[in-house]
């Protein structure tokens, strides 16, 4: 208990008293009787000639004391709770003078100097001087506190004049780090925890909190699955450790949440990431790391209104240049592709249609947030509302994301021993999406492959094909002006006119979500806090889509308009009870935590589809507007329950030796009896060398030094579901058709049982150092981590031999290693004239390797690209889901070279032509087959990094932030061997082999060879560096702001995701697939838009 708190206690007691000319000592006794306070004083020191007149009603006790002791030499002090000592002031006080200087010996103004253990203090003047009356100069200790400096204590030791040197504070050492069921000062943390605070989040233009984390902390990789508005982000912490979901666990205000898409960054106070095994405090699903999000609260005794707005124009950064009509025609003809256009047909259209120009548009993005916050002595509140809207750069409002959120956070101290509060948020968001990330005819892949000869709309007469289709009664899509969209004479299959496809897209998902909790903190005795917290995460989602009739080709058509609806409901409740006991014994600081948690999640859905819409409009796109005949309905429901016990002990000795140990025991209903429970331990230790006496000799070079280490285990049941271990009899629907045309329902086991299915476990060791140099201006953190994920949970399909007759649905299969180094460096500098800057960077290396897989298999096949090609593989000795294909070694230049190669290798059944790639017989069996497909690249980067500069001068500030990754590969997966007339990027044409000696890097025109399209020729370097943010802000001078009754006004302009440096020739090196086993496969991704933005922040 510090003194301020005690003074506050006094202020919480009020007194009513009416006396006239009463001696002071009597007055004190009167007050004693009317309050719970006892006064200790020596009667002799109370002046007998002091008579008091009082007429007070409900006045605060401290004010009363101030009043009656005025003009005496007496002061008062709280000894312990409810005991106030009245003592003689001046007589025993010693007057001292102290001067506070910084590390360069310059005086520091405005520093608070307090006599330790008293309220007795003052603030330094311009020359750094302060004058104090201390109780006893021989024993007094001064506490010197100032922003950006380390707190210092100095003994007066009887001196009358002394000077104090302040050390610059190590950045962030005092910051509070949330570690799960509690918080620690950064200086006491022994685990690898990264934090991002609201001031950093506030500067980002991101509409999603996960986006705001991108590149901010080492070891945390945030990659968008797509650049389409509202699309999910893939967060991986310290590498991909699994072959299922590698999503971290999200804890929002203590409650586990299914996702974080419903949060607006403005609601967030801090994001803390448990990267090492300290995630074990959340045990069961901490294997992929834990992201702890704390939302904002109001401040006591304040009131504030904050308004933010942002407006941006979004556009595509780089369009992929595709072949023009002439190049396309030449390429197809040169490659002997069936159904190539004639030269005359190509010449007739000039360059033809540039589909990339046609599909992209500039699109607006807007965000408003309004927050009211504040509080009284006992109660704080925050009411926050946000609106976010973003149109897509492809599809406009067909790819739109809208979100409204409302949050109410309040907390009240109901009794001195009881605090209750709640944190609730409601969000409504709607996402429209167009098809992408699919080489089978999505809007994006159609825009890529559509031939340049096809017009966007037929300018005049329809083509023969289109006219025939129209005559045959098919629907050709018309644009709003009534013109028919172009129909290709060359591209069929799953593809269609991308603009017509966008127009035909009617698909939206709306989610209503309520997440929050109510809690009570009880402090029955000093230092012991009991917390009970009940939280919910409820989401109600409705998907609605419909498809009009259309005709693009005989393979891509719809002759009857139909729609589908799906309603998903998720509801989770979680109840946690835990106790925290913090106690100091001399220099030994202990903190104990123990608690329980139970959780129940349920999901259900009902969905239906229907066709034969009466009218092809949004208004008639519902089941009631369609005939009954083809209606289909589906529904399902699942429940998972979890129960947990956990405990933690933290200890430090003089903030020098730090220890922490914790254990969590978890159970999940998703496992079979005997495998439900698992135990997750964690140990860590730290040593602050710079607090040792011997460190003094080097502390002018190294100002701060801490080494720390940790080890522990975590679990994951993310990739398990209810009943997955069981086998089960399921009906076959609609059954088997009999000779009467009716159906007989059959029933059989759906899968083989695996009662041994158990938790996926990750085991991690972390060793780290935190250092500060240059008067603490430069801080450096380095971590080494080694994380092994064991018992990986894998779909059993690739593991069960086929002759077993059915599949194990899930098996524990294999171990994955992730290890690497993380560096985080920041430097703060500035000049006296007000120029401040901070530069920082982080870098993490990742070595990812599959160590072993289930003994039953050599490899697990991953994603297919096109038809018949397994493009990603999970195999020991390689990175997870590496790219698999034919290896090539240059281009055959002439027939002699081919003959020599065939003679040398003995290859049979392989007849390349000059200009074809030289394909390697990897397994040496003298024939080229699938077995020769092997490692040809990895989607995982060797290292990822972020770099930032903040500068401020007077009211201006500049923020620059760069993020990137290096060493990953991208597989260009939108080219398919079975769609040979598909258009290709222009460099396929420009770089092509045109004859002997022309190039040894790129092949002669070829549209269907697996040796080209299923080979390393389609693997490109995916390294990139992206300037995420370049922001210039101006904050109104306080004098000016005050005139307008505003606290703070900042306006800024920002270029976000604007500049990208990469060698990848596709649309975007960053956007990747959401499926783990399709990472880095570019099937036609929605690129990340760049944004030119203006923003405003107001508070008053």
């Amino acid at each position: 208990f510090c003194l301020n708190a005690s003074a506050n206690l006094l202020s919480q007691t009020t007194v009513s008293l009416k006396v006239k000319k009463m001696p002071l000592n009597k007055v004190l006794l009167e007050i004693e009787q009317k309050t719970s306070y006892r006064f200790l004083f020596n009667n002799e020191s109370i002046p007998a000639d002091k008579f008091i007149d009082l007429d007070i009603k409900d006045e605060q006790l401290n004010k009363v004391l101030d009043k009656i002791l005025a003009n005496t030499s007496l002061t008062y002090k709280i000894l312990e709770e409810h005991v106030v000592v009245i003592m003689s002031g001046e007589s025993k006080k010693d007057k001292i003078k102290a001067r506070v200087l910084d590390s360069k010996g310059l005086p520091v103004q405005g520093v608070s100097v307090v006599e330790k253990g008293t309220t007795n203090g003052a603030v330094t003047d311009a020359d750094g001087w302060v004058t104090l009356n201390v109780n006893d100069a021989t024993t007094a200790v001064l506490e010197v506190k100032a922003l950006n400096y380390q707190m210092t204590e100095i003994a007066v030791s009887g001196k009358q004049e002394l000077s104090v040197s302040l050390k610059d504070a190590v950045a962030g050492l005092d910051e509070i780090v949330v570690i799960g069921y509690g918080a620690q000062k950064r200086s006491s943390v022994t685990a690898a925890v990264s934090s991002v605070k609201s001031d950093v989040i506030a500067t980002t233009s991101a509409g999603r909190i996960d986006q705001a984390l991108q590149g901010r902390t080492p070891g945390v990789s945030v990659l968008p699955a797509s650049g389409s508005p509202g699309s999910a982000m893939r967060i991986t912490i310290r590498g991909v450790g699994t072959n299922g979901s590698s999503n971290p666990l999200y804890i929002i205000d203590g409650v586990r949440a299914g996702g974080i898409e419903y949060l607006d960054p403005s609601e967030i106070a801090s994001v803390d990431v448990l990267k090492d095994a300290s995630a074990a405090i959340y045990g069961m699903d901490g294997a992929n790391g834990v992201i702890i999000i704390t939302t904002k609260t109001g401040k006591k005794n304040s009131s504030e209104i904050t308004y933010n707005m942002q407006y941006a124009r979004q556009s595509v950064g780089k369009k992929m240049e595709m072949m023009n009509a002439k190049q396309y025609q030449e390429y197809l003809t040169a490659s002997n592709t069936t159904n190539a256009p004639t030269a005359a047909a190509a010449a007739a259209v000039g360059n033809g249609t540039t589909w990339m120009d046609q599909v992209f548009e500039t699109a607006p993005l807007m965000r408003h947030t309004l927050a009211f916050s504040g509080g009284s002595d006992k109660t704080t509140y925050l009411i926050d509302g946000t609106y976010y809207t973003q149109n897509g750069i492809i599809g406009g409002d067909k790819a739109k994301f809208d979100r409204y959120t409302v949050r109410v956070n309040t907390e009240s101290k109901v009794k001195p021993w009881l605090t209750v509060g709640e944190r609730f948020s409601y969000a409504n968001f709607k996402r429209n999406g167009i098809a992408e990330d699919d080489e089978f005819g999505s809007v994006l892949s159609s825009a890529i492959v559509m031939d340049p000869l096809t017009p966007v709309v037929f300018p005049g007469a329809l083509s023969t094909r289109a006219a025939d289709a129209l005559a045959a009664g098919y629907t050709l899509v018309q644009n709003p002006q009534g013109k028919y969209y172009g129909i290709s004479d060359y591209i069929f299959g799953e593809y269609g006119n991308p603009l017509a496809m966008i127009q035909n897209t009617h698909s939206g998902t709306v989610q209503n979500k309520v997440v929050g909790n109510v809690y009570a903190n009880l402090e029955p005795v000093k230092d012991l806090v009991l917390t009970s917290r009940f939280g919910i995460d409820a989401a109600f989602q409705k998907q609605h889509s419909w498809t009009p009739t259309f005709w693009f080709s005989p393979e891509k058509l719809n002759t009857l308009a139909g729609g589908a609806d799906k309603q998903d409901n998720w509801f989770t409740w979680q109840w946690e009870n835990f106790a925290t006991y913090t106690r100091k014994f001399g220099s030994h600081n202990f903190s104990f935590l123990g608690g329980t948690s139970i959780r129940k999640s349920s999901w259900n859905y009902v969905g239906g589809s229907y066709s034969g819409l009466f009218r092809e409009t949004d208004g008639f796109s519902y089941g009631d507007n369609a005939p009954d005949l083809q209606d289909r309905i589906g529904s399902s429901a699942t429940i998972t329950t979890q129960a947990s016990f956990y405990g933690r002990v933290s200890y430090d000795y003089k903030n020098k030796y730090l220890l922490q140990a914790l254990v969590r025991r978890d159970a999940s209903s998703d496992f079979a009896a005997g495998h439900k429970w698992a135990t997750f331990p964690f140990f860590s230790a730290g040593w602050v060398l710079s607090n040792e006496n011997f460190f003094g000799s080097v502390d002018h070079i190294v100002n701060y030094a801490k080494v720390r280490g940790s080890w522990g285990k975590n679990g994951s049941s993310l990739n398990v579901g209810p009943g997955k271990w069981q086998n089960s009899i399921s009906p076959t629907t609609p059954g088997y058709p009999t000779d009467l045309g009716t159906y007989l329902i059959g029933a059989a086991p759906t899968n083989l049982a695996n009662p041994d299915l158990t938790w996926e476990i990750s085991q991690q060791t972390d060793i780290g150092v935190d250092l500060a140099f240059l008067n603490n201006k430069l801080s450096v953190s380095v971590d080494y981590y080694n994380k092994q994920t064991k018992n990986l949970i894998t779909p059993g399909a690739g593991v069960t031999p086929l002759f077993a007759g059915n599949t194990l649905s899930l098996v524990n299969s294999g171990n994955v290693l992730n290890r690497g180094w993380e560096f985080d460096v920041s430097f703060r500098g500035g000049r006296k004239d007000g120029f401040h800057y901070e530069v920082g960077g982080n870098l993490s290396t990742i070595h990812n390797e599959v160590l072993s897989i289930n003994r039953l298999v050599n490899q697990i096949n991953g994603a297919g690209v096109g038809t018949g090609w397994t493009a990603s593989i999970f195999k020991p000795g390689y990175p997870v889901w590496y790219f698999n294909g034919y290896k090539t070694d240059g281009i055959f230049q002439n027939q002699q070279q081919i003959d020599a190669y065939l003679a040398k290798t003995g290859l049979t059944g392989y007849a390349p032509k000059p200009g074809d790639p030289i394909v390697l017989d990897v397994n040496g069996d003298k024939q080229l087959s699938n077995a020769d497909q092997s490692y040809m690249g990895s989607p995982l980067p060797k290292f990822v990094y972020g770099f930032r500069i903040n500068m401020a001068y007077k009211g201006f500030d500049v923020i620059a932030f760069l993020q990137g990754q290096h060493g990953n590969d991208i597989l260009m997966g939108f080219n398919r061997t079975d769609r040979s007339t598909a258009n290709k990027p222009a460099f396929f044409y420009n770089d092509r082999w045109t004859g002997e000696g022309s190039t040894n890097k790129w092949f002669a025109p070829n549209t269907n060879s697996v040796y080209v399209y299923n080979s390393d020729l389609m693997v490109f370097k995916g390294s990139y560096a992206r300037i995420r943010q370049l922001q210039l802000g101006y904050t109104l001078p306080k004098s000016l702001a005050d005139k307008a009754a505003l606290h703070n006004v900042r306006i800024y302009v920002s270029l976000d995701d604007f500049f990208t440096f990469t060698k990848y020739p596709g649309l975007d090196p960053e956007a990747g697939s959401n499926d783990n086993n399709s990472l880095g496969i570019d099937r036609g991704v929605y690129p990340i838009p760049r944004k030119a933005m203006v923003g405003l922040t107001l508070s008053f």
Partner: protein
Amino acid sequence: CNKFLEQPVNGILPEDEFYKTDKDAMQAATAVYDMMQTDYNTVWGSMFIGRLMLSDESNAGGNGPGDQPGFQDMDLFKHDSQNEKVYWGWRLCYYTIYRANKVVAKVTPDNDLRKRLIAEAKALRAYNYFELVTLWGDVPLVLADIAPEDYTKTKRSPKADIYAQIVKDLQEAIPVLPVKSGYAAGDKFRMSKGAAQALLGKAYLYQEKWTDAATQFDLVINSGEYNLAPSVAAVFARSGEFGIESLFEISYSETQSYDWGNFPWDKAPEANIYIQLMGPRSDNYTKAPGDSLLAGWGFCRPKKKLYDAYVAAGDVVRRKTTVMSEAELKAAGGDWNAPTAYEYEGYFQRKYGSFSTQTNSNGSAIPELNYGTNWRLIRYADVLLMAAEAQYRAGSEGTSRTYLNKVRNRSGLGDVSATGTALFTAIVTERELELAFEGFRFLDLVRWGLAEQELGPLGFKKGKNEVLPIPDQDVKTAGLKQNDNY
């Protein structure tokens, strides 16, 4: 707490609570047929089509060499152990056997219905082991659940053991199974006594047990249950399904009225999408006005060799039922605009034709997706020809000729009077012409020792391609020995 951790799992019925009632038994047996329907349907993994690829009746075709590379590779005998069609063929046989095993092991033969269902399951199990043993040779003999720890202990059993099991299953099933006419309407799809006898005869034939084979075929022929339909076209017409000539079919239906939005590509559709796959490629084909052969996706393009075989035999009726030339198409008013289309030799397949009469275009139904055409797996003409072969081998040339001529006469061809090797050659030719595109040609050529002669020019390698490779997954997961030269 433990109670809290025991939650009901919806839609999960433990195996121990099934296989108890008559209804359970009926559903369990239906599931075996259902898997066989999947067998010929899911993920373009039909071994029915796979067998056509291995024959000299057609080229793979399609859009180009990258279209369904698994089939393309089989067509060129370039298939390896990672071929996805080989994988699915093998897989679906064993998945069917798994379900049949459940019926045999778990259904108690308490009444006549259950006894019959068990017999059906045994016959279906035999059918699938026959498929396995003829296409892969030695294969694991799985008659019950295998525990995961026994996966790697399971070995391939010699062909003789597989055949022994096939014979055992059929011999046990035949006395119990009703004759075809003994089944009520709606149950005609089931394994009957005749179908089981024909299959048993076939199993003997493949083991060159000629007399035993002939005996079984004669039981079928003399049963009075079957006869030849008026024409081959009638057999393959919609009305021919489960008709007089039918012994065993896998049933498909057009009644689902699939459209592009709801076709279950990832599951087992009830319609036969392979009919669409085999239709003349839509990019290039224009239907003749009076014809009902709709456009498809251009697989299984007939070889000139097959067309020429009909011409050489003077077999006009069956030729027209089986193959159509480009000239015939154009003469009828249709068109084909891509003379150099991939693997196109100038002919279109009509036996399993993409006929508008066999699909559904009502309401939302997309014709391409709704062919209800059944696979005719055992039909009477095949039985007669197998009987002819067995009788010839057993020395009864007269009976052999009688059976052979029955088949020929039906298609307007005269009697064969050949003897000795010439008679055998006549049987060979007759099977080629009568049974084209029915998936028997490759297996026939292999057992007759003619595979190298007929298929060698197509890439067939003696000592290797007589059997398919064991799928890589089972070599890798269970350590099965690979077939030679794969």
